[in-house]
């Protein structure tokens, strides 16, 4: 017989695994995404393989396998020169890496916040409410382009994949000016008393 008085909070957690597929076949998994991330960081397949504790041959075969499947280059190797050559990710390689880590970050948010496990409150990222003033309005066929001036001094917050941490931490000063891409979801007239 179970004794409910002894019951404690059970440490039950969901687990997940992500990989990208192409034509229903695996294309890029966690290991491959980390390999691309390290190549992007060190500009070297050998150094990336070393950090990940895998052989150069395994790393190179992994890359070639993706390139054969997609028929696109994901790395570009420049041989020789004063620096002894280097390997960089192509634009397509960067897109693949970004796609994987962005998806992983979104999934991690859901899986690490139990309140998001149920219902439809799927949180892709944080939304921000900004105050602005309409400065122009133009008809564009079935739509309108509304130009809005956003006031300075407003706070924004958002989630980013942790792969950005190195580039963020390399900055000596948080005063440095940066840019973020945003997607306006909705605008509405600001009523008197609206929270800013």
């Amino acid at each position, binding site marked *: 017989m179970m004794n409910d008085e002894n019951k404690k909070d059970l440490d039950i957690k969901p687990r997940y695994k992500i990989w990208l597929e192409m034509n229903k076949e695996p294309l890029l998994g966690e290991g491959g995404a980390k390999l691309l991330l390290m190549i992007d960081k060190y500009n070297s397949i050998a150094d990336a393989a070393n950090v990940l504790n895998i052989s150069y041959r395994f790393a190179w075969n992994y890359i070639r396998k993706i390139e054969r499947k997609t028929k696109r280059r994901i790395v570009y190797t420049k041989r020789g020169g004063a620096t002894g050559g280097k390997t960089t990710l192509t634009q397509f390689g960067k897109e693949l890496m970004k796609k994987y880590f962005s998806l*992983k*970050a979104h999934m*991690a948010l859901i899986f690490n916040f139990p309140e998001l496990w149920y219902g439809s409150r799927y949180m*892709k*990222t*944080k*939304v*921000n*409410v*900004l*105050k*602005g*003033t*309409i*400065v122009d*309005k133009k008809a*564009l066929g*079935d*739509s*309108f*382009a*509304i*130009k*809005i*001036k*956003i*006031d*300075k*001094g*407003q*706070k*924004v*917050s*958002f*989630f*980013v*994949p*942790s792969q*950005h*941490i190195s*580039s*963020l*931490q390399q900055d000596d000063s*948080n*005063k*440095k*000016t*940066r*840019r*973020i*891409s*945003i*997607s*306006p*979801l909705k*605008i*509405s*007239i*600001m009523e008197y008393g*609206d929270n800013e």
Partner: protein
Amino acid sequence: MNELEITNVNVTIINDDVLEVTAEINKPQQIVVIISKEDIVFQKFSVGDVVKVIVEAKDITLSDSKER
């Protein structure tokens, strides 16, 4: 694609995969929002109106301002 220039960037680690970034909009900036005619009918928008804009930091790329 709309972009905002930000400063005073602070980073908090949420977990191994996700960081929370807070920042401040450092100067007045303009963005363009495309809305349907139905929305215009539903809610009149005129030049000079003060509006609230709900934005999502989407497909985030943090880039140095000087690079652009």
